[in-house]
């Protein structure tokens, strides 16, 4: 085997930044893909336009909303995350926003986000794994901010409709000092 064809493992520092490898689906279910992208677009719109109740209703009863800090595959049961909300804390987050006295969202951030690079993941359970990127433009009293994230979803069909059981948002600058992010990311 010569040097050109030898398989070389990536350096550790790459794993640190990219995280563990995901298992991408190799077969393509057009109908499911279409349904998933429609769901992601709807979720993005509800976040951009602050339709809090409608967004909350996308969650399953055991939903988990996770925005890690300082890496991709940190252990949220041991390390700090920006957001690590179980279903009741998601509800609390929404209730706070709806008071109208969540000052960092009064006036609300004006948002436009693009969800792209959607790929279906292989899944051990009946949940549908999805990977995508999101890029969000925010403008508020402070000024304009760009956010970029790699996201992982686990979607579940509940009474015929897709729901979110899990959403992980890995901000690509999550190891740095970031401005307040109190809109729904």
């Amino acid at each position: 085997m010569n040097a050109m064809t030898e398989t070389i493992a990536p350096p550790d520092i790459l794993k640190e930044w990219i995280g563990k490898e995901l298992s991408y689906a190799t077969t393509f279910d057009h109908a499911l893909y279409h349904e998933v992208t429609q769901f992601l677009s709807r979720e993005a719109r509800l976040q951009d336009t602050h339709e809090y109740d409608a967004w909350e209703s996308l969650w399953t009863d055991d939903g988990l909303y996770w925005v890690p800090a300082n890496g991709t595959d940190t252990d949220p049961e041991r390390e700090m995350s920006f957001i690590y909300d179980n279903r009741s804390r998601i509800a609390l987050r929404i209730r706070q926003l709806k008071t109208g006295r969540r000052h960092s969202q009064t006036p609300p951030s004006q948002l436009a986000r693009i969800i792209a690079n959607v790929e279906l993941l292989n899944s051990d359970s009946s949940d549908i794994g999805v990977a995508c990127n999101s890029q969000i433009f925010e403008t508020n009293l402070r000024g304009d901010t760009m956010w970029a994230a790699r996201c992982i979803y686990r979607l579940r069909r509940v009474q015929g409709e897709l729901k979110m059981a899990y959403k992980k948002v890995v901000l690509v600058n999550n190891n740095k000092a970031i401005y307040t992010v109190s809109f729904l990311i």
Partner: protein
Amino acid sequence: METSRRTQWDDLIQPGMVHGSLYYDEMIFKEEVDKIWFTTWVYVGHESEVPNKNDFVTKSIGPMPVLMVRNRKGDIDLLLNRCPHRGNAVCVQEKGNRTSFTCPYHSWTFANDGTLMNYAFPEGYNGADKSKLGLSKVPRVASYRGFVFASMATEGPTLAEHLGGAARTLDQACDNSPTGELDLSAGFLHHRTRANWKFILENECDGYHPGFVHSSIFSVADSAIGSLYGADAVAITRGFGNGHTEVDPRPEFRRRDKPMSWFGTTADKLPDYVAQMNASYGEQRARQIMIDGMPHVMIFPNLFIAEIQIFVIQPVSATESIQHVTAIQFKDSPEINRRLRQQTMGSVGPAGFLLADDTEMYERNQRGLEIRDPEYLYLKRGEHRERRDEDGYLIGHSTDDLPSREIWKHYRSLMEAR
């Protein structure tokens, strides 16, 4: 010159009034870096962040990064991450475990106590003295109960003299741990804000704002914080001197006389922790500790202990700062630690139920100073009811501006020093 300096500070800092330029003038900021951040004791990190020999983590002193290292001998060194050759960084990882650091530019290699071990092609240096070409080290490093402080000044007050009576609050924090030790190893959230660092400092023991800034979360979550900061509250503010200030809610918790009330819970919800406390301190002492709870103290200029969180305040420029925050955990107390982490993640950081809104206030304050009339900020609340406690420290009502006045008093003494 001396007279004009005195006149300048007389003008900028008056009783209960401070000039707006103190928060936005970049020349004043440069002077603060020299006279405060690179002179006095500042908090750097905690020993539990580098538990093993050769562990390191990137920290800061003012705007400057430093490497906090537990060296090969097990001692803590603070190294300046600048190769003496051309200024390159010898380490670009935020944390890790290494016995040496090699500059990527010309391969100069340093031991993790800063000593220059080797440079490439040494014959070109013709016997230059390697002992003078090591990484610079922060001249004074001292720990108190695991909290590592540093001073860039080779001489000055000791850490004990700097902390003074505020050391009690660090003892109080450690006493809440059954082992007497805290664990700050959960990793920091780094929250950037476009505001001067002193707005953050002054907010930390400002008991006037919570009922308003945080009414959104208080109104939807069961929170007892509001009762500490009402007009009828018996909680007090205290100035320890040297710019250290606290909100002391112990009078309120002692009135309630219920262990763990400070944490918004009851002893029966944390049986393992309570058993650990009783075993460590005896039932009577443990009960008192669990009634008094954790401190709420701002150690000048950058260490804020907010009951169950620690914030490290970092100035970036006159108008930009970073709040580094993590959960305080009690060493070897997994039951309560999970709740300490969960509650921290909900409350603080860029998405926190509390801190997102505090930080919004800092930024609005900062922008407000673009409006140049009035020229001064007004910090006179409670001036008429300041009094001394049995230790001689100034105390006031929990909603008074006493902490701000105490901070500015010390600030002025540092800035006036030659």
